[in-house]
């Protein structure tokens, strides 16, 4: 059967995947700490039908051969770790990282996940937890009689209690960085897992060793650019249409052949 049918089929499925990442990016346009994905395409293998330089007769060689491409595949998706815009919320437990770094979250199965979503809350024990209720690592507990909580740019958490003139230090928020953050595995719920390609986490104090500063009362918005995604969507849609046109043209050619011979 006509190979152009299968080649355009790979084009259709690749554009479909691209549209999937675009729609996921757009769906997460207001998810705090979300990092957009980008689909990366590679051309598939080429089949050599005639080797260039092959013998066309005893004394002559073919000046050029025939290599037929077999289509396209999605090599992978890349997370784009550019920083999203910062939004002021004034909530004392909203934290944003200005620069590189991730918060560490202990999941219920005891593993450590990483996130840039800094919407923290207190649980019934006064412990700092994320919106799923998973505890921040290192664990910080705010006493019940605390009036106000202050988190410094270097991650030091302190509380003022009634009747005391000095602030009590409750602990320090540590950040971690990765050699290749794009290699982290997105786990949903704004969390990321460490993978062999991300490298191991290097923990440190916010504002030092290249880590960003922690900003209290602010949140990092999603880094999705709506205009860019819409432009990408237009080009994906047209590419999809053209590939499907090739399918219908090949179909018509086969139909003509079967009807007339």
């Amino acid at each position, binding site marked *: 059967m006509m190979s152009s049918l299968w080649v355009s089929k790979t084009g259709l499925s690749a554009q479909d995947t691209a549209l999937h990442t675009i729609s996921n990016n757009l769906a997460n346009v207001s998810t705090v700490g979300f990092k957009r994905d980008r689909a990366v*395409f590679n051309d598939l293998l*080429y089949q050599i039908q005639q080797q260039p330089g092959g013998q066309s007769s005893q004394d002559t060689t073919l000046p050029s*051969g025939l290599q037929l491409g077999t289509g396209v595949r999605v090599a992978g998706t890349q997370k784009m770790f550019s920083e999203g815009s910062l939004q002021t919320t004034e909530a004392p437990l909203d934290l944003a990282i200005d620069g590189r770094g991730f918060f560490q979250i202990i999941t219920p199965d005891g593993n450590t996940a990483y996130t840039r979503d800094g919407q923290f809350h207190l649980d019934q024990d006064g412990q700092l937890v994320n919106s799923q209720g998973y505890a921040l690592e290192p664990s910080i507990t705010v006493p019940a009689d605390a009036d106000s909580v202050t988190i410094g740019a270097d991650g030091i958490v302190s509380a003022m209690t009634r009747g005391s003139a000095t602030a009590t230090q409750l602990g320090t928020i540590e950040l971690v960085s990765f050699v290749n953050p794009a290699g982290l595995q997105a786990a949903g719920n704004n969390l990321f897992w460490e993978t062999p390609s991300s490298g191991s986490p290097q923990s440190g104090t916010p504002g030092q060793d290249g880590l960003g500063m922690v900003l209290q009362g602010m949140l990092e918005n999603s880094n999705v650019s709506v205009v860019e995604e819409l432009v990408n969507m237009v080009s994906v849609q047209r590419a999809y249409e*053209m590939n499907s046109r*090739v399918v219908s043209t*090949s179909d018509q050619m086969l139909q003509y052949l079967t009807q007339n011979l």
Partner: protein
Amino acid sequence: MDRLLYIAMTGAAHIDRAQTVHANNLANLGTSGFRADLAQARAVQVNGDGYETRVFALAEQPASDFRQGPLMETGRDLDVAVSGQGFFAVQLPDGSEAYTRAGEFVVDALGTLRNGAGYAVLGDGGPISLPPYERLQIGGDGSITIQPEGQGEQALVQIDRLRLVKPEQGEVAKGPDGLFRPIDDVALASSAEVAVVAGFVESSNVNAIHEMTAILELSRQFELEVRLMKAAEQNDEAAQELVSVN
């Protein structure tokens, strides 16, 4: 009768192959750095007494289109596009060198700079290894400057320079994996004339309008070939009627 039928058949078979080349170009409309393949047909005469009137069609893929694709702004540090002629050099798993225009680079866990397909990107001194950095900048000549982790703005270090080559027309050809290789197997010398821009990705240089037109034109040509085959059949029938005894 056989001449007409078989010659029309090679024409149809050639159109099928040329159609595949164009379908592949359209499938790679969104593949960054992709170079469109060209397709052409050549007339091949059959040699020998009495055969000279037979000229078959032979499909060929003479070269790739080396025109510049549009540059798309991404703002990512590790996205680099070649502006004008030239290629990035990557190292294949067997140690040999190949050339590509796709510049969506990533850093792996060991700090090695790799391209989207996972091959190590070559610098002037082999594969490029980046120490942990806070900021990275790739200059117009491919030089890579970083601000090492935990150091100030003044501590910029030049790590390496991307190996850029500028092959002459016909010096490189596309291999079966879509990467370009020197035709005579001799690695090309680095060129100082190649300019790159960071923060951009060069998209595929496939001209969608041209490909669509070519596909429609080929499909009409195919119908013509089928008509010729039909005519051959009708000629044959007419001849049979003439000599039939009834």
